[in-house]
């Protein structure tokens, strides 16, 4: 009996001493100190706070918590921000470097970064939201902000803009508007972007074709044919929501408006395009396409010359060029023959939002402000996410960019001259529709589905999906 009590006491003592040991890491201790600021130093064990004071002194952080005085939480105490984005290797490297620079300049802030590629990002974010551990700063996309805002996951940034924490003097109002819903801003755009068809200039030169700024579908067909005959390189035609949308825009239609009503007007045109191209000798075989993932930069068909072209957004150009290791060029998506309007548009490439559950919204807003407006930061990022929204920063970066980058600036400039306003943000349910679209087009490519019937089925199924998603 006595032995039992002795053993228990010793074990407890051991556990407690371990906890004190654990506090020797700067962040943990200073966090503990910060956490008790309101409660004042008296509450926690004297050992704890003196240790905290000692470690803060040792770490040399400015504005040390002064061993738990009633400093306002957020004034120089150690803060850890969690940041998540989707990207490719290039973006991951430069963003990490930028975060390191910020940490250097703001020693009281630690930024934990996390990143995935596009295909797994939203699943992961949903899982994090379900677990209640969304990072403080989340990269958002125009297609998804409606859904995330509707479920109150995004913090209202208007107060930070009003107070100047997020400086918007050099950012066009339209950019702020693109991240606003109901007049309040929920997301800060990180760059401007436009859909573009990337192509391999070497191959096109070899085939003796010049690619104009924008082709019609007939011209596109002739070009693909010539390239295939002269060089044997095949053509890739995309199957995702972007190209369906530009096809609709070319015809003067709003695709999600159509699908909501179960109309298949634009879908029919797009599916017929897919079917026609898939039957041509110059199209990449569907089974080869199935084993590649065109949404991940490193496995795009253009990288290993499976195709001479690729459909993407202008801000993926740098990463794609790097992965391909050779010179690529950009042109606009082909327009429908006799198009009613210009299908190209400028899109906010990504946004940074602050999650509503974040405990450090002020610090997060400061980081976003720095990320958007600081020239040094953007000289590291080099417009990888798109043309910087701050006009001064954009000018400073453009002067320093290399040739590959300059191509992006020039292309976005060209598009901005002819672009029509972007469609409204995609409605809830677009994830399921996108999956359905990809599988359907795959079926068309394999010849298992007929374009017209597939379009009708797709439209009616999308209608159901949108209805169910909207009713929530």
């Amino acid at each position: 009996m006595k032995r039992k009590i002795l053993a228990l006491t010793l074990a407890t003592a051991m556990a407690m001493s371990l906890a004190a040991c654990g506090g020797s890491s700067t962040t943990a201790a200073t966090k503990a100190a910060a956490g008790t600021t309101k409660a004042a130093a008296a509450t926690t064990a004297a050992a704890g706070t003196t240790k905290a004071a000692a470690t803060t002194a040792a770490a040399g952080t400015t504005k040390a918590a002064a061993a738990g005085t009633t400093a306002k939480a957020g004034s120089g105490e150690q803060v850890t921000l969690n940041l998540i984005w989707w990207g490719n290797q290039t973006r991951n490297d430069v963003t990490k470097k930028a975060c390191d620079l910020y940490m250097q300049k703001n020693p009281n802030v630690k930024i934990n970064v996390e990143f995935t590629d596009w295909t797994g990002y939203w699943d992961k974010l949903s899982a994090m939201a379900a677990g209640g551990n969304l990072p403080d700063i989340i990269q958002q996309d125009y297609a998804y902000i409606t859904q995330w805002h509707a479920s109150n996951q995004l913090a209202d940034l208007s107060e930070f803009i009003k107070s100047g924490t997020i400086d918007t003097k050099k950012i066009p109002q339209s950019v702020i508007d693109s991240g606003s819903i109901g007049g309040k801003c929920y997301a800060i755009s990180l760059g401007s972007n436009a859909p573009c068809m990337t192509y391999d200039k070497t191959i096109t030169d070899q085939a003796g074709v010049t690619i104009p700024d924008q082709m019609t579908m007939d011209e596109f067909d002739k070009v693909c044919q010539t390239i295939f005959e002269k060089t044997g390189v095949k053509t890739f035609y995309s199957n995702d929501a972007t190209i369906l949308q530009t096809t609709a825009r070319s015809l003067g239609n709003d695709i999600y408006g159509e699908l909501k009503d179960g109309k298949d007007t634009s879908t029919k045109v797009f599916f017929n395009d897919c079917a026609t191209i898939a039957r041509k000798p110059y199209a990449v075989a569907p089974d080869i396409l199935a084993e590649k993932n065109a949404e991940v930069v490193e496995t795009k068909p253009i990288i290993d010359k499976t195709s001479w072209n690729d459909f993407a957004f202008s801000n993926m150009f740098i990463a794609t060029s790097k992965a391909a290791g050779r010179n690529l060029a950009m042109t606009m998506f082909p327009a429908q023959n006799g198009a009613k309007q210009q299908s190209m548009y400028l899109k906010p490439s990504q946004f940074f939002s602050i999650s509503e559950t974040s405990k450090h919204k002020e610090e997060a807003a400061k980081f976003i402000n720095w990320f958007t407006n600081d020239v040094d930061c953007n000289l590291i990022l080099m417009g990888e996410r798109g043309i910087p929204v701050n006009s001064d920063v954009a000018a400073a970066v453009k002067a320093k960019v290399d040739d590959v980058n300059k191509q992006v600036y020039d292309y976005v400039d060209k598009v901005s001259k002819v672009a029509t306003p972007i469609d409204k943000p995609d409605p809830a349910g677009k994830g399921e529709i996108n999956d359905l679209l990809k599988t359907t087009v795959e079926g068309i490519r394999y010849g298992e589905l007929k374009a017209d019937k597939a379009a009708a089925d797709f439209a009616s199924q999308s209608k159901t999906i949108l209805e169910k998603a909207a009713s929530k």
Partner: protein
Amino acid sequence: MKADSAAGVKAVKTKKTFTQKLDTQGVAGYVFILPFIIGFLAFLLVPMIMSLVYSFTEYDILREPTFIGVANYIDMFTNNAKFWDVLQVTLYYVVFSVPLRLVMALLVAMLLVKSTKLSGFYRAVFYLPSIIGSSVAVALLWKRMFASDGVVNGVIKLFGGQGNTAWLGRGDTAIWTLIILAIWQFGSSMLIFLSGLKQIPVSLYEAATVDGANGPQKFWSITLPMLTPTIFFNLVNQLINGFMAFTQSYIITGGAPRDKTLFYTVYMYKQCFTYNKLGYGCAMAWFMVILVGLITLVLFKTQHLWVHYEAEE
């Protein structure tokens, strides 16, 4: 505290003190397994119950769930062709991968049952694939191997074939790359077969030889019947594992082409996190539980027809 001993002869049983209660063997046992129980409750039982509750709600993760009764289940069975498609794909996978895996395991086990100098090494080597099992790394490797410019085609070219089939892109072959991956990982079943084989009394084989039986006869009349308990065990285990397969489908093919390799679990995952229909996903999960449970129950109930337990003689 101790009952009043003044009660005299009546109080035959005295109440134990608290510390005496702690002293009994049973309590000590519970304390030792407490970590496991906490883990079981927190990570298994509670989530399972939550999942069951969620299956009766509509829950898009970003907002509070709303109760909708059995609507998810009804929608699943009557309104969703894709549900039956993925179920079919998963059944196809299980029906082929499990028996073939067991056959491979048995064959290799029989080869390795003799303890030669290198048999230990071979056993380790054959067991290795099943440990690194359904890992992402192996899946990525497999994807590269079967790509149209991958190792498999390279080997085919060596033997003079065309060597440019896109195994992962063709509807009829894609699922077989996954089945072959499952068969390749026969190691753990093999080890269990090995131990089962070693338990067969050598005297039976000796008696058979005396009676003039040849190899195949010995196999069908002695080995196989004596192994039936092991086969049963492996069968149940591998069936359950087969239905739970996720990584292979998600990483290697992503369900392509045309959802012909979309496993039940992957579709369930998509419902939960890509389409934000967690309630629906949970309903799918519980259907799978019931399905696998039923299959296991049938196996158990029919085992008396073919499984021969030595002890029952």
